[in-house]
Each structure stands twice: as C-alpha cells, then as structure tokens.
C-alpha cells in the first residue's frame, strides 16, 4: 500500500466528460431494462408488422396510400413518444425514488449537466429505435416519398426534435410531480390511450369528428408531421408549432413543479 492512498485531490471532471458519462450510463440502463425495451422496440415493431399484415388481409388502403407507407411514419412517431414520454417519465420517477438524483445532486455533475445527459441518452435511444423501425418498414415494402428529399429530411428532423422535446418535457413534469408508482401507471396509461386514439399511428383524419381535437394533441401533431414529411414531402408547419407549444408548456410546468427528491 503506497503512502497516503487517500490524500485529497478533489475536483470535478469537465462538463463535457460528465455529460457524456451520464448519457452513456442512462442509455445503457434504458436498453438493459426489459420493460423499457419492450416499449421502445417490441411494441412499435408489433404494431407495424401487425398493422401492415391486417391491412393487407382486409385489403384496405389509407387516404389512397398503401398501408405500409402510412403506418411506418406513424410507428416512427410512436417510438419517439414511447421513449421520450413513457421511458423518461418512468426512469426519472424511479431515479427520484431510489435517491439517484439526490446522490448525483451532491456530485460535481450540475443539474443542467444531468438534464443534458438525459437528453443525449434519449436522443441516442430514439436514433437506435428509428434505425430498427426504418429497416423493418423497408423490409415490409415501405416506400417513403422521394419527391423532395431535402424537405422530407427537414420535416422528419424537426418533427423528431420537437416531438422529443414536447414529450420529454411532459414526461419530466409527470415524474417530478408524482410518486414513482403513480408515474409508472400514468405514463403507461397515457401511452396506451394515445397509441390507440391519439392520432399517432393512424392519420387524425381517420378519427372522424374527434380529429379536430386530436390534431392539437402532441401525439396527433407528431404523427401528422411525420406523415406529411414522409408521405407528401412536406413540412407541416402547424403541427410543428403545436409540438413547440407543448414543449414550452411542459418545460414551464416542469420548471415550476419538479422536486429533485
């Protein structure tokens, strides 16, 4: 044993290093967690494969498009929602419960570093989900529009970024205000309700009279923005604004109510 093994030499790592370490850790834990992986990958894949198979058997098409071309953008939106909202809410809720946020609160990692780490982890997981789902979609015969690739890419990037921001802000709001068990229940319930009736997977126009409400929900707006980009090569300004408004509202609510312990 060398002399003075524990001699003090305190100091935090650089913010960049801390944020990267935090995001790697969170992404790893998210992908290791079976339930979260189910939400992130398995359910969207089942919805996509099942939806395309069912549509093929009944022989319906949607708005004059093939089912796979409408469902794939919707399932990509669903994947964003599942991770940004449900996974973030549940994992953050349990981080509060288990004292992880408390312990990190006494570490050199500042709170904005913790948030940045979370956002990075989230974006990494979302990127991974999108890659998997795009491959599955292509295998099912998905043909995204190639009319104006630049506008499509822009529309998708904006929709994913604003959709992630809106859902993550709302997820953090729920996690910061409720107990971990209540967060778990609510986050899953909201996910199921929005998946079924929120205009994510299916176009809002298929909901009849309810569509006027659904298009103002973050789920409907994200779904529409993805479909506009990938089906019509357009940038759906109104839906993107709706998402930005939800992101602002969620951030405000979170900032007002979040309790770190």
């Amino acid at each position, binding site marked *: 044993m060398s002399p003075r093994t524990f001699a003090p*030499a305190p100091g*935090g790592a650089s913010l960049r290093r801390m944020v990267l*370490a935090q995001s790697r850790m969170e992404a790893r834990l998210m992908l290791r967690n079976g339930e979260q992986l189910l939400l992130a990958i398995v359910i969207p894949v089942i919805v996509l494969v099942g939806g395309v198979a069912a549509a093929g058997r009944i022989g319906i098409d949607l708005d004059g498009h093939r089912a796979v071309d409408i469902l794939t953008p919707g399932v990509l939106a669903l994947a964003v929602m599942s991770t940004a909202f449900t996974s973030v809410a549940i994992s953050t809720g349990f981080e509060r419960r288990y004292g992880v946020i408390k312990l990190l609160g006494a570490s*050199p990692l500042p709170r904005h570093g913790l948030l940045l780490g979370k956002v990075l982890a989230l974006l990494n997981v979302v990127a991974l989900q999108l890659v998997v789902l795009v491959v599955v979609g292509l295998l099912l015969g998905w043909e995204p529009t190639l009319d104006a690739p630049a506008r499509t890419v822009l529309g998708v990037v904006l929709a994913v970024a604003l959709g992630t921001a809106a859902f993550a802000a709302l997820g953090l709001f729920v996690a910061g205000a409720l107990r971990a068990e209540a967060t778990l229940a609510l986050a899953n319930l909201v996910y199921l309700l929005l998946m079924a009736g929120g205009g994510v997977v299916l176009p809002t126009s298929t909901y009849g009279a309810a569509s006027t409400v659904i298009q103002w929900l973050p789920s409907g707006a994200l779904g529409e923005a993805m479909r506009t980009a990938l089906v019509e090569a357009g940038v759906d300004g109104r839906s993107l604004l709706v998402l930005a408004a939800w992101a602002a509202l969620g951030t405000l609510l979170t900032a007002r109510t979040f309790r770190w312990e």
Partner: protein
Amino acid sequence: MPTASPAVEIDGLVMAYGDKVAVDGLSLEVARGSVTAVLGPNGAGKTTTLETCEGYRVPQRGTVRVLGLDPQRDRAALLPRIGVMLQAGGAWSGVRAVEMLEHMASLHALPLDTEMLVERLGLGDCGRTPYRRLSGGQKQRLGLAIALVGRPELVFVDEPTAGMDPQARRTTWELLEEIRADGVTVVLTTHHMDEAEHLADRIHIIDRGRVITSGTPAELTRGGRSATIRLVVNRPFPEGAPESLRAELGPETEVRQLDEVSMLIHGPADSTTLGRVSRWCEEHGVLPQTLNLGQRTLEDVFLELTGRELAS
C-alpha cells in the same frame, strides 16, 4: 495541516418540517483532519444537519459553512471537494455495483483507482450484481466507496455501518481510520456509541436537535456518577433474580439478565453497590466469578444527560 477555517462550522442552525422542529439552535465545529462523530438517537436531527452541510437543505435560521463555503451559494465550488454517503439508496436498481462506482469516478477529475476501492471494501464478489440484489451491508460499502472515489477533502458519512456484519464493520472502521491518517476530514453520524468511541477524535452528542455535550471520548467518559457492572456467577440464577437484585440495590439501578449466569447492572459507581451485589449473591447461593466495574460509556453519559436510553 494548516487550517484556514474549520472544515465545518454550524452556528445556531434551526430546521423545522411543518411544526416539527428537527434541529433547534444547533452549533458545532469540525476541525480539519479530524474524525468527528455526531451521536444521537434516531430522530435527533443528525441527518437533517448533515443534509444542510451537503447543500440539500436551506438553513431556516443560523449559518452553515463547509470548508469556508456556503453550501447553497457556493454549491458548485463546494460539491467537488466533499464526498457524501447517503443513509440509504442513491443508485439505479439495475446498475451493477462496480459500474455505479466507475460512473461516479468518471464525474471527477482525479478519481481513486476503483479496483483498489473494490478490493479494500470487499466488493469484488458482487461487482457485477445489480444494485437491487445487493445486501444491506454491500450497499453500505458501495456507498462508502462512492463517497471516497473523488478524493474529497471532507466526507460526510451517514450511519456508515448500519446493517453491516461485525467483520465488514471492522473493515469499514479501518478504512475510515486510514483516510483520516491520509488527511481527509470525516464527519459521521451514528447511534452506536462503540463506533463513536472507537473512531472519533471528537464527539458531539445531540438530542432533540441540540448539541447536549461535546468532547473527546476520554473527556466524555471520565468521571461521572454511574457505571455498568458485569456480574457472572458459577451456576444459574434463581427465578426472578433481576427483580430481586434490583430491589436490593434501589430504584436508580437497572438490572438486565443476559443469560442464565450473567447480568448487567447499571447504577451508582461506588463500593456500596459492589458490596450489595456480593451480599445478594451470598444470600441466593451463587458465587460471583466476575464482578466487573466497567468504564463509564457514552450510553451512561447520554442517560445521565437526558434520562433516556440512547440505543433503540
């Protein structure tokens, strides 16, 4: 070590939750390079005091300075310099023990070698075990490793050996002694008097949110009016022995039977008491094999000051 300011300075701290006062005008100082124990029963205000030093809570009244800094205002400057061991929790349920330690190490500029810490704290066997499956003692040891990994100047350890088996406890004590020798200031809370006596340079006994006495272990246990007598006899005590002995010794005495041949007697430390114990033995046909007037313990000190027992 040259000391610009004390490691911790608390002056007139008041903390209340609703109308329940947890800390009630508490003042204490911790010298740099020392091990200081904050000793008191559960609910005495130990954890609240520590959490105020760690920047978790805003003092409602009074001032707190840690390494000369304000834990609220100077939070960003202070946090890298201190190590914190929480009383419970602090890790993701699915994170592996060593993975957690390495993560915390990566938040520091010059962390300790995590392999060395894992070995020193006996965490090698459970290094790949998810946090939720660690035993209470393993969680405590991991918590201590996390508190130390950033090479802090000052560590706050809240009930460091709660839930540990005697061997892990001994290892932890040795480690705390070693980090003190290497120049780290240690502030620990405990409700185990033997832990405070063994480790601390200075002890603050707190009760109901106030420091009721402070001193070195020797200062606190010197003198006093009462002591613990240990009695072991050659054959089993008759039925009702503790009650009958207590009647003989008087109401200020407490008698507790440990097993069929031994008892602990807590009462006035004088020869009258010893004489009465031997007479009682003679009358009840048992022969004392050990009749030992023990040193005054912190338990005695606490009992004298508060009229209540320290240990739960």
